[in-house]
């Protein structure tokens, strides 16, 4: 089994197998037997009428086939009902060097009762493809290669089987099996430096909070008070400040604390990279759309913060599942990756209340920004004092529209997105690009205006790693001044966790 991929069947699909069992009374009725009978009768009657034994002799193999089918049908009893396919498909492993393909193995089901059917016809269908057939001997195995998505949870292969005898006169009913589902966890990118809030509320961690307490950063040197630990005594300061040695001086520090980060995934849309696919009816579930970009970016951000001992939580805008509360540790990372892998396109539902980030948490919204909802929430949380970052998850687009109407639609959509992102930027909300696209170019003076789908200038759509590093550095600079001046401007409320 490949790392990060699992295969399991959905129980809901299993009910269809039960439907097949309901029709199993007719399982041994084959068109072959009926056809053989018809041809036999025609030959015999024709031969008798014309008085030619040769014509009757033509019926011999058909008569034998009909007889064989009759014997098979009478020997099969009600106990031979078919409730499950005679084969099953197991996931074997991911191909080395080609991580987009998974090796599956068609094997006979060991629990299946030995029956008269010596051949098995398997019907396989990959998503978005017409069905293929595979005829095997009942005890034969056959490995298969199937394409898997880059991330997410997808049914990579639907299949069912029907058994038939070697003379093809006896068949069992076609039984559909639960599809082979694989869950591909999003890949983790290189570790990122991320901003953290100034209002840290944790009690342990690698960041320095503004509260007095146990930590590494010096806050003040003061006379020892009841409750001060002896190991906090600063002997040099004592010798320097207490000339007659009548009082002891202790070092007071800022408390260390962990940061909280709240990741919000917008799974209302999955925008494919090829603009032609925006208008396709059958979506390419294996492609790299905006949801894949969101999964990968969110997993990378979560891994980076968790590696520094911070707490990370996860929620989605569609309100499909309960939010994953902020927590730290490797187990939390696995939970986040699993939850991210399970995200699929779900239309937004009306929610009673907006997602509620923990106090002092950095909020990151991963969205394609096709409508106002993510922008509204970013503004809301920004106004509440949370450091907010929007991550634009639209992948690098390939303009493959096939008609003028499609081209107009794409241009309008991208124009609306651009306006939305520019508004956010004007309000001081940083939006970064989650996909690895080309670095934004500055528009020189006198140059023509950028196209609606061109990247925004001034780093508004710089990539995630660079953008977060820049935010962290800017926040780190302003934090030193902020401690003395306590200024609360949006960019100065964030500082590095590295």
């Amino acid at each position, binding site marked *: 089994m490949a790392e990060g991929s699992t295969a399991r069947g959905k129980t809901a699909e299993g009910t269809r197998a039960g439907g097949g069992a309901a029709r199993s009374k007719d399982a041994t009725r084959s068109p072959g037997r009926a056809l053989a009978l018809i041809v036999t009768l025609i030959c015999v009657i024709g031969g008798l009428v014309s008085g030619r034994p040769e014509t009757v002799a033509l019926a011999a*193999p058909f008569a034998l*086939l009909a007889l064989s089918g009759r014997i098979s049908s009478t020997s099969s009893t009600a106990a031979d009902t078919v409730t499950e396919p005679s084969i099953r498909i197991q996931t074997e492993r991911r191909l080395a060097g080609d991580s987009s393909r998974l090796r599956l193995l068609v094997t006979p089901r060991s629990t299946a009762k030995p029956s008269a059917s010596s*051949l098995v016809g398997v019907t396989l269908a990959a998503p978005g*493809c017409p069905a293929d*057939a595979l*005829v095997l001997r009942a005890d034969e195995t056959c*490995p*298969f290669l199937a*394409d898997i998505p880059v991330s997410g949870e997808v049914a990579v292969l639907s299949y069912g089987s029907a058994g038939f005898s070697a003379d093809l006169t006896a068949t069992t009913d076609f039984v559909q099996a639960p599809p082979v589902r694989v869950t591909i966890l999003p890949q983790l990118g290189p570790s990122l430096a991320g901003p953290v809030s100034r209002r840290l509320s944790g009690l342990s961690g690698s960041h320095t909070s503004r509260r007095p307490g146990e930590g590494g950063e010096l806050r003040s040197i003061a006379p020892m008070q009841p409750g001060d630990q002896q190991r906090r005594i600063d002997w040099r300061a004592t010798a320097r400040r207490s000339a007659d040695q009548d009082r002891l001086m202790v070092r007071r520090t800022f408390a260390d604390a962990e940061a909280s980060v709240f990741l919000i995934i917008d799974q209302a849309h999955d925008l494919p990279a090829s603009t032609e696919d925006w208008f*396709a009816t059958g979506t390419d579930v294996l492609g790299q759309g905006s949801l894949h970009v969101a999964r990968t970016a969110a997993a990378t951000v979560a891994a980076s913060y968790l590696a520094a001992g911070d707490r990370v939580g996860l929620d989605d805008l569609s309100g499909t599942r309960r939010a994953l509360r902020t927590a730290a540790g490797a187990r939390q990372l696995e939970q986040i990756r699993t939850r991210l892998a399970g995200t699929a396109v779900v239309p937004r539902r009306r929610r009673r209340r907006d997602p509620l980030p923990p106090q002092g948490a950095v909020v990151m919204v991963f969205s394609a920004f096709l409508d106002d909802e993510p922008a509204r929430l970013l503004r809301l949380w920004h106004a509440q004092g949370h450091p907010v970052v929007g991550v634009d998850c639209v992948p690098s687009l390939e303009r493959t529209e096939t008609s003028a109407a499609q081209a107009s639609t794409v241009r309008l959509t991208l124009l609306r997105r651009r306006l939305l992102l520019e508004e956010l930027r004007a309000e001081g909300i940083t939006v970064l690009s989650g996909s690895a696209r080309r670095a934004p170019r500055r528009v020189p003076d006198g140059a023509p205006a950028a196209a609606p789908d061109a990247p925004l200038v001034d780093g508004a759509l710089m990539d995630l790693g660079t953008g977060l590093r820049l935010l962290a550095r800017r926040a780190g600079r302003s934090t030193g001044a902020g401690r003395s001046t306590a200024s609360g401007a949006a960019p100065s409320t964030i500082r590095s966790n590295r």
Partner: protein
Amino acid sequence: MMRRSGQPAGVRAVPDRRGLVPLWTLRCATALTAVLLGGVVWDGMAWDGSAWIALPLLVVAAAAILPSTGLVALSLLLLVVSYAVNMPPGWPWLPVFVAGLHALFVLYLLLLPLPRHGWISLLALRELALSYLRIQALAQPIAVLALLIDDDGSNLAVVIMGVAALSSWSLWLVVRRTR
């Protein structure tokens, strides 16, 4: 890469082993067998330059590609009736025609429920061939017997000998199988 219209959105799952024959090979073989058998039985008809002679050939060939029980039945009946009408009595290739017709029936029946694209393993083909030969072991003596009866007409001794030989042959096959 840009996807052309009509091209499937996904990528097919493909087998990763040897010993598999594409179903298209089998469909072509079926169509060829059907056309050959049709060519034999319709060769006796007077060729007057009419294109209608190609119609039954098209029907029997199409039955190998289109999944239709009616088309398969029509093709088989066309061949059988044409044989009865066109072939002269005592035609020596009767056993071959019987074998061909049986093979065509088996191939039609195999392809009928299957999707157009796919594969069949050589072991499955071997299993089908063994079953085919088992039935032909009975059908061929019957065809030879029918030829003998047709040649010797009212010769009672030949008929009785033939029937006795066939019965014992069938009995031996049945007893062998039940063991």
